[in-house]
Each structure stands twice: as structure tokens, then as C-alpha cells.
């Protein structure tokens, strides 16, 4: 393989693929990025066996071929080269190393044979649809925070994506994530072709990667699905991930309905007040008590080790007064997702899940378990 290309093109491609490569690997080849030169392009591919990202960048190919070199080292070198540099990569005759040259700089990198590089290529992708990248980014950005890290409940370690009827009866593409304490549910209008898709659980790492890869919101994002894998294509980047093989719990049963105590607060004032009083919270018990009464909410934190805090904000509320506790971190996480100026809490009692809505936006809702205070 012998190829020459612009530093900027190579940096862009490596930026997209190198994050998949774990810093510590017991299998040496997984530390490497696959380089394949052919037809005026250089293909880059990295994988951790669960997730694979490929990108193709324009290049001058003097001799087609393929090899693999350490991904992070290559990325670090190319990143440090001056802007506008021309980078040339050539395999040694015996294939055990790659020579990198840019200007007067020269590097020799140890290479491993291309044939050893694992291939995550899926079989048949039965379902496929195209969606506006920005809409999809919204779907994951608003649910990502609720993904569980509890390893024994692996089926919660991702976003549950499925097609269903939305609250107003239209077909929606819905994302749900929960860790048992909070739950996020966000809908977008279902794109053509999504209707027949099975319910899938997209793992956390793939979610985070696709979130990063979507840089411009109006480009199209193509999604293909098989039984066990999902593939996203955006521009020249292709991300393929295994799906989590498990059953997502029936979230519809935990979304409360008919709660008649409606509390409406200014989102930003509320967020600021929670942040303020939680300053005295302990690391472990981060409970903040909301005392909701006519026209106001009093937020208190009582930490026996450090002190107490209290703040009051105005609110719209005309039901029976209620005291209810929540984890301050979770309240802030949810408040951070709310775009509307008004946060709407639908409460029942201090022991029941509370529904949080983003003003009158029906496409997103959050459920939060209260804490004993």
C-alpha cells in the first residue's frame, strides 16, 4: 500500500474512527486502525468488537493495498503535523511496518496484517430508513442521560428505540431510557420505512458515538437494521453496532397518568434553585425536598453533616399542599433537557412516580421516582 493525502482529511477521518478504539486492549489488533487504499480513497476502520466505525477520505493511491497500525499513535502523530501538510503512508515490503512521511518528518509504525482485523459486517439488513440527522440527534440527546450503568441489568444499558403510536395517534419513532430511578421518553415523527422496525436496544457507546458523529443537523442519516445489529450512515462515515440482546421492560406501565396535582414552574428559576440548595447536599444522599403550596415551592436540603439550605420560588399550583423529595442530580438532569420556559410536574403523592413535561411539548416526557425525605 502506498498512498498520499491531505493532513486535514486524515485528521477528520481518524477523529471519527479512533474513539472506538479502547486505550487498553488485551487483543493487540483491536488497538489498530485498518487502512485500505483503493480507487482514489483511503478507507479507515476501527472496532472494539461491539462497535465499528468506518470512514472514507479522498487520497492519491500510488499502490492499492491494506494494513493496520496503532490507531491512537497514528491519530496523535497526524494531529500534531502542521496544517496543510501532505501525509504519505507506505507499507514495508514484508508488511510488518508502515512508513509515514510528512515534509521532513518520518515515522515507522509497527503494522499487523489486514487479514487479522475483525470484521463486524452484518448479514442482511432487513429494515432501513432515512431520517434527518438533527431530529435523531434530539432523540438521543434527550434520553441519553437516563441510560443505566448497572451491568447486571444489561438490557438497560442502552436506548430502547421502536416505532409506535404517539399520544396524538400518529406514528412516531420513540426512544426510551431508564435506570430505574428516572425514565426519559422522547418521540419524533416516524420516517418512511421505520414502521416495520423491531424494537431494539442501542448500546450506550454507540449512542454516544452517533451523537458525536452528527455534526450538522440537516444532513440525512440512514439507518439499517438486522436482528442483531444497527448501522448508521452519515456522509462518508458508517457506524455499525451490535444491539443489546435483551428485553426492555414494559415502560408503559410505569408512566403515570391521571395525576391531578399540577405544578408549573419557570424552568430556569427551578433549575437554579435546585442547584443552589443542593450545594449543601452530601455525595450519597442528594435529596431535595419540595414543599409545594399555593403559588410557591419551597426547596430545602437538610444535610446533618454540613447544614441546611432553603430557597423559595413562585409557582402555579392550586391543589392540596404536598411535600415530596427528589434526588437533586436527577432533577437537574431532567431540567437540563427542558427547552420550554415552563416545567410541568404532575404529582400524586410522596411515594409515587412523578411525571415531568417540557411545557406543552407532548413529544418528550420524563418520569422520576421520589426519595424519602
Amino acid at each position, binding site marked *: 500500500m502506498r498512498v498520499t493525502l491531505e493532513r486535514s482529511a486524515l485528521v477528520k477521518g481518524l477523529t471519527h474512527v479512533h474513539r472506538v478504539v479502547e486505550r487498553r486492549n488485551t487483543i493487540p489488533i483491536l488497538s489498530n486502525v485498518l487502512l485500505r487504499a483503493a480507487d482514489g480513497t483511503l478507507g479507515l476502520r476501527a472496532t472494539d468488537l461491539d462497535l465499528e466505525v468506518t470512514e472514507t477520505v479522498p487520497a492519491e493511491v500510488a499502490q492499492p493495498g491494506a494494513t493496520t497500525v496503532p490507531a491512537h499513535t497514528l491519530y496523535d502523530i497526524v494531529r500534531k503535523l502542521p496544517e496543510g501538510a501532505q501525509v504519505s503512508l507506505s507499507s514495508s515490503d514484508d508488511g510488518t511496518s508502515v512508513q509515514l512521511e510528512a515534509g521532513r518528518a518520518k515515522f515507522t509504525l509497527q503494522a499487523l496484517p489486514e487479514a487479522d482485523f475483525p470484521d463486524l459486517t452484518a448479514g442482511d439488513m432487513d429494515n432501513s430508513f432515512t431520517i434527518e440527522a438533527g431530529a435523531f440527534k434530539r432523540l438521543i440527546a434527550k434520553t441519553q442521560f437516563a441510560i*443505566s450503568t*448497572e*451491568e*447486571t*441489568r*444489561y438490557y*438497560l444499558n442502552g436506548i430502547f428505540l421502536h416505532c409506535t403510536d404517539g399520544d396524538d395517534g400518529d406514528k412516531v419513532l420513540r426512544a426510551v431510557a*431508564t*435506570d*430505574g*430511578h*428516572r*425514565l426519559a421518553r422522547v418521540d419524533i415523527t416516524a420516517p418512511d420505512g421505520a414502521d416495520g422496525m423491531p424494537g431494539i436496544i442501542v448500546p450506550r457507546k454507540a449512542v454516544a458515538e452517533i451523537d458525536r458523529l452528527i455534526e450538522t443537523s440537516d444532513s440525512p442519516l440512514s439507518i439499517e437494521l438486522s436482528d442483531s445489529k444497527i448501522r448508521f450512515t452519515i456522509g462518508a462515515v458508517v457506524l455499525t453496532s451490535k444491539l443489546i440482546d435483551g428485553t426492555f*421492560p*414494559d*415502560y408503559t*406501565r*410505569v408512566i403515570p397518568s391521571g395525576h391531578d396535582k399540577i405544578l408549573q414552574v419557570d424552568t430556569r428559576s427551578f433549575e437554579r434553585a435546585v442547584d443552589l440548595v443542593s450545594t449543601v447536599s452530601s455525595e450519597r444522599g442528594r435529596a431535595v425536598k419540595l414543599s409545594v403550596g399555593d403559588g410557591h415551592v419551597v426547596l430545602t436540603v437538610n444535610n446533618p453533616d454540613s447544614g441546611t439550605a432553603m430557597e423559595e420560588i413562585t409557582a402555579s399550583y392550586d391543589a392540596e399542599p404536598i411535600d415530596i423529595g427528589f434526588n437533586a442530580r436527577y432533577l437537574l438532569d431532567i431540567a437540563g433537557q427542558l427547552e420550554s420556559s415552563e416545567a410541568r410536574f404532575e404529582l400524586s403523592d410522596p*411515594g*409515587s*412516580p412523578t411525571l415531568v413535561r417540557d411545557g406543552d411539548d407532548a413529544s418528550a416526557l420524563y*418520569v422520576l*421516582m421520589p426519595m*424519602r425525605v
Partner: protein
Amino acid sequence: MSEADQIASLCRNCGATGAHGRCQTCGSARIVTHKELFRLGIAHIDCDAFFAAIEKRDDPSLRDKPVIIGGGKRGVVSTACYVARLNGVKSAMPMFKALAACPDAVVIKPNIEKYSAVGREIRQRMFNLTPQVEPLSIDEAFLDLTGTQGVHHASPAETLAHFAREIERDIGLTVSVGLAPNKFLAKIASDLDKPRGFAVIGTEESASFLHDKPVTIIPGIGPAMAKKLAGEGYHLLADIQRADPASLMKRHGEYGFRLYEMAHGRDNRRVDPDSERKSVSAETTFNEDIADLRALEVHLWRLCEKVSARMKAAELSGLTVTLKLKTASFATRTRAARLSDPTQLAGKLFEAGKHLLAHETDGTRFRLIGSGLSDLGNAEAADPADLADPDLGRKAGAERAVDKVRAKFGRDMVQRGLGFSPRPQSPDTRRKPDDAPGQKDK
């Protein structure tokens, strides 16, 4: 003879000191004498036949009758009173055997709530003696009374004898006290003179006292370890006393050194009130090594039930689940996972343990499996409603219903009805209340 060499003595009946033979003050024969009596400060206090004694206290007509606390016909003996013990009834004996040995025994179902309340009252009184109380269970604890002389105007021995009298007078129960220079010897001592005992093991005679005792007297040495030690030629503590500490350490690591120290009556563990309990666990060694995941799950499930029962009895919850495996070649693997909320349910413990186990069954043959919960907290925090498990409330209710049935009829009955085979996939879903005769108790 100097004063220091005089044999110190204490009347347990009235608290007078310096008596020999009978107490000159009250005439009682309950005199405890020991050279180091007034110099020792570590005690182990253990209530005598605790559950049975409470029942006898509350129903005087039972006083002279053999009383067994335990499940029904198919259950096991939880506690036997001393009358029943004379007839050969022992703890953990199947009830039918106990009744064969002692047909006229009065069998009483355990009332754990009542016993817990009494246990708490006794513990509170221990804390009145010293903050250095390390509870071991509902009815026993270590106390470090070193340095309390100034507060109580009495030596630890006198304070303890006074405590035992108070418990008898105010609560109507008897305790046995072991007084020694350390926890290991104190625990042995409390057992020497039971019931209503007060035994002392001093530093000087500890090595000769332990000399002819079996290795199993050391806490943590069960049948498996005893067998291993016997294989190495260690049957009695005398064998370990004679051993080369280096070779013990070579074979048993740090524990080997502890063995050597304990065999000589030395134990430097502190009485630690905060170390109440760091974890609750159970383990079992198989008759034959097992590699099969399903077979291992069967054992795991039983252990989870055992751990869960202990957690429930101790009113605890735990956040971290531990799986322990020992391979046929004696390599230990320990795996842990943190739950999203503390639990005390066997079903949740099993779900997490099963997940950890699945990653370990790669054809390796195992000789032991263990399951445990740590990061302990109180039971109030256990198993809150879970958005990711809408059925949790129902499953928890089912498990508690089964617990009640077991308390009533003994664990074997429910075990069989809801047994493991053929596929122990999700035991808690099979334990629906409608499967269990105890649903009316829910």
C-alpha cells in the same frame, strides 16, 4: 505471697470481691476465681437459648417443659431450651428428628419481631457499659471494657457480673459471659460455662488451654477447612502450635499466620462497633466439582435464599452483590456488581448473581460457590419502587408470602413445591402468590 499473686475472686451473686469457697457476704457459691480476673477487659456476651428463654419468660407454664422454637413438622429446630437439649435436641436438627428424640416437646413458631425487640433492649444496655460494642447477632456481642474502670468504679469483671444480674432481674433472661484478653478467647470462654455462665481464659493459660482443642474451635474453620488441615496433619491446636509458621503461611497465606497466632491464644482484632457487619454471605462446597451453568444456578439460588433470609432477619439491605467461585484447582474468583438500589430480596440477588455467573462458566469445573451482599444499610432503604421493573412490588410480595409460609411450615415444603428443575430461569416469577399457600397472609 505478694498481693499481685493472690487469686482474684468475685461473687457473681452480690458482687463482693475476695471470697473463697462461699461468698462471705451473701453465702452464694457462684464465685468466679482467676488470677487475671480484674485485669482482663474483652468480653463476649451470649444470651442462653435466647428464643426459647423469651417464650418461657412470657409463659411460665412452659418453665420446666422442653421447648423447641422452629418450623412445623418439616422444619428445623431454630433454638431448643436446655430441657430439650438434655433429651438430645440440637439447633438445626430436622423437626421430625427432634420430636422423635423428645416427643413431649412444646414446639413454638418463632416470633422474630418479639425476639428482635428484646435483643435491641439488651444491646442498648450493653452500650450503657461501653461504646465499644460489636454485635455479632441478635443475641450476642463483643464488648471492650478496657479503660472503663474509672467510669463504672469497678473492674470489667465486676461490671459484667453486674450486667448479667441486671438482665436477669429486669428482662428475665440469663446470659453467659466470657472474659479474656481478646475476642477469640472471649468467644470460647462464653461457651464454657453455659447457661448462666461466667468463664475466664487468661493470657497465661491460653496456650495450654487450647492445646487439646480441635482446630474447628477457630472461627472460620468449617468441615472443608478442617478436612484440609487434617490432611496436612493438623487435627488439634497442639499440632498447629508445634507447626512452623512459615510453612503454614506458605500453604494458607495470611490466614496461615492467623491460624498460628490463634492456636497460641493470640488475636489482635479490635472490638469494632462500626464493623457491625460488612457483608452477609453464604457458600457451599460441592460433593463433586461442577462446570454446568444450570447446576451451578441451582446452588446459587439456594444460597441467595439463605443470604436473603439472613438479611431479612437482621433487618438489613445490601447494594453490592458478590459471587464467589473456587475452581477445582482451588483458584478463587470473586466477582461483584453494584445494584441500582439496596435489596434484601433473594430474587434480585439471584438475578445479579446469575449474570455474574454466566460470565464465568466457560467449562471450568468449580468446587465451591458463594453468594453475598455488602454495602449494607437498613431495611427501610431496601427495594424501592423501580421504573425498570414494574413487577417488583408483586415479586417482593410473592417472596414475602413464601417467607411466611416457610416460617409456618418449614422451608423444605416450599422448596419442593417451587423447586428448581427443570430450568431455574427466573425463580421469582414462579413464586407467584397464587402458587403459594400463603397468599392469604399477604
